[in-house]
């Protein structure tokens, strides 16, 4: 048990993605004390795993760099990685929070020199690449990881390999004796920026994500296109490593479906429109051009991005089919997925073969299936609306399916509400 100096004046932000970082920084830059806890070993969340943003097609690393600089320069923010909230009790202005800190087996002495990684041979799935590649069991979570500190996977902590990693470290940064720790905190307010996860595509049985290697999800496609991803930015399909040029994007994979996620995930249309431009970027126009086909119910390019949709509509490498694909079968000879369905504009029946299928999977709250404090109010899709006592708030994609831009706006709003709680607490304590 570790003691802490947090008080009713402190804001706890749960989740270190773009929303959590924003909420923490906005409050910290107003002079409030903030504790930012993150479950994984690094800040950045799912935003850091994107290749580019829509609509400007700029890189997430740019904004990450700015936010990390703000965090490093602000003594009001205390970042705790590999930390989860296990219990919250109390009420607005005075919450008692229990945190569970998992062992990283690497201390602050780490300089990210990488010697431990070289000393280790076994590999684990690289979660940063959604499992599309493997990484050494002593690893840096990603190139821009914050803190810039290695992690030793628990699977080798008690083994000879763990000892080898320890022996290779010149800075005595490896501590294989680290144990799981519990931390008790008192805070005045909690901002839940727990984010989202891609809907489990295995549940959409007719699309065969679990059966066909060349059916992947949109988040995996982001990693395939990223030069820092598992294929060095080449669009190589997982089935046979061949270059995929004729790519289908299936919208509403899980979203707007009473059997899966009843809500519209909002971002997927723009994400697929954006991803067609990755294909264009990879193969150019003319003879060697790639081909993107978007299968959709209706394109919802959330309000002011309609111009982006119109731009993609004019792109000769992109075509649109108004139809929710009914099922996918695999061409056994070449591993190509064949899409079956009926198109709404004329009711033509199609069976179209593609090199690769990208499922634009919906956004599910990361807290789905997690026991939250009783006071938390969830909507019908498990997005966090707030708490009954008005002392806890949802921020970003934890509160609604949002793109990065809107998640930042939502987080700033949540931060302001949290600051108001702290102010009220302060005036009550003074009185």
């Amino acid at each position: 048990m570790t003691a802490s100096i947090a008080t009713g004046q402190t804001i706890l932000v749960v989740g270190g993605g773009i929303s959590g970082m924003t909420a923490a920084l906005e409050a910290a830059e107003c002079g409030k004390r903030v504790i930012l806890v993150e479950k994984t070993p690094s800040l950045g969340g799912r935003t850091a795993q994107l290749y580019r943003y829509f609509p400007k097609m700029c890189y997430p690393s740019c904004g990450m760099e700015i936010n990390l600089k703000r965090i490093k320069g602000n003594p009001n923010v205390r970042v705790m990685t590999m930390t989860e909230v296990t219990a919250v009790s109390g009420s607005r202005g005075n919450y008692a929070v229990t945190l569970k800190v998992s062992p990283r087996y690497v201390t602050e002495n780490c300089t990210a020199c990488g010697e431990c990684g070289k000393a280790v041979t076994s590999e684990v799935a690289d979660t940063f690449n959604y499992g599309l590649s493997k990484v050494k069991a002593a690893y840096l979570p990603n190139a821009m990881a914050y803190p810039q500190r290695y992690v030793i996977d628990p699977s080798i902590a008690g083994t000879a390999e763990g000892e080898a990693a320890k022996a290779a470290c010149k800075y005595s940064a490896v501590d294989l004796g680290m144990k799981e720790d519990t931390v008790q905190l008192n805070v005045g307010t909690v901002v839940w920026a727990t984010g989202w996860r891609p809907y489990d595509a295995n549940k959409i049985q007719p699309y065969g994500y679990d059966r066909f290697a060349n059916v992947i999800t949109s988040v995996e496609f982001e990693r395939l296109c990223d030069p820092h991803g598992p294929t060095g930015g080449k669009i190589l399909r997982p089935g046979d490593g061949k270059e995929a040029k004729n790519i289908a994007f299936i919208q509403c994979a899980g979203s707007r479906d009473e059997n899966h996620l009843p809500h519209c995930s909002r971002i997927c249309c723009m994400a697929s429109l954006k991803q067609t431009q990755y294909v264009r970027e990879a193969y150019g126009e003319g003879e060697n051009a790639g081909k993107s086909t978007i299968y959709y119910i209706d394109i919802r390019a959330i309000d002011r991005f309609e111009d982006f949709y119109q731009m993609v509509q004019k792109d000769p490498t992109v075509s649109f089919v108004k139809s929710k694909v009914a099922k996918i079968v695999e061409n056994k000879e070449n591993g190509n997925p064949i899409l079956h369905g009926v198109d709404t504009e004329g009711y033509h029946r199609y069976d179209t073969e593609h090199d690769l299928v990208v499922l634009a999977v919906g956004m599910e709250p990361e807290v789905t299936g997690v026991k939250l404090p009783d006071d938390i109010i969830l909507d019908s899709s498990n997005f966090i609306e707030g708490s009954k006592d008005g002392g806890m708030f949802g921020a970003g994609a934890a509160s609604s399916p949002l793109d990065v831009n809107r998640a930042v706006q939502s987080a700033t709003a949540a931060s302001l509400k949290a600051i108001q709680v702290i102010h009220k607490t302060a005036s009550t304590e003074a009185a």
Partner: protein
Amino acid sequence: MSDLNTQAVARYKNNFLREVEERVEEGNMVKMCMQCGVCAGSCPFGPHWQHSPQKIFMMIRAGKREELLTSDSMWMCTSCYNCIVRCPRKLPITHIIHGLANYAHRLKLVPKGQPTRDVTKLFWDNLMKVGRINELTFSLALYFKDGLVQGIKNSLAMQSAGLGLLKAGRLNPMEIFGGHKCKEQSGIHRMIAKAREIEDGRRGLLA
């Protein structure tokens, strides 16, 4: 054409959607369709029927009354329920399709000789006679529905199956004289008449 049909045309004018909502089983769910096409793509009948469920829902909204009610599409449904299972809006598609078939039959708009309708009607009439199905008279009625010559051909084709059933004691030739009956037949008839009255009242189909 029938009086009921003339009445319906006069009553609903061009608003076929409202007619379906009021008069067809689960018809009020038709407007929930978002035209995604999963039902059409999931139907095992594939291209073998004129109008897929997706198209039928659009035809209802577009007021294609005659075209739909006189088509044989609703009669092709085998009740596999694939469309209901897959529909992202959980529309009771199979029920609506059967509702439309029933409604077209009531309005006497079904094309003459529509086989599914004819078999269904033979089954219903046979059942209503004595309150239970007489398999022998039902089979014979089915074989001879297209005339004497075709009936003899059908019977000969099914000869071995019939004899097999006879040997196994699964077919009693004496059933031809009326066979098993339910005890209180008039009670059953009154029950069915009442049920129909209630349902027709609910759907505005009473004369």
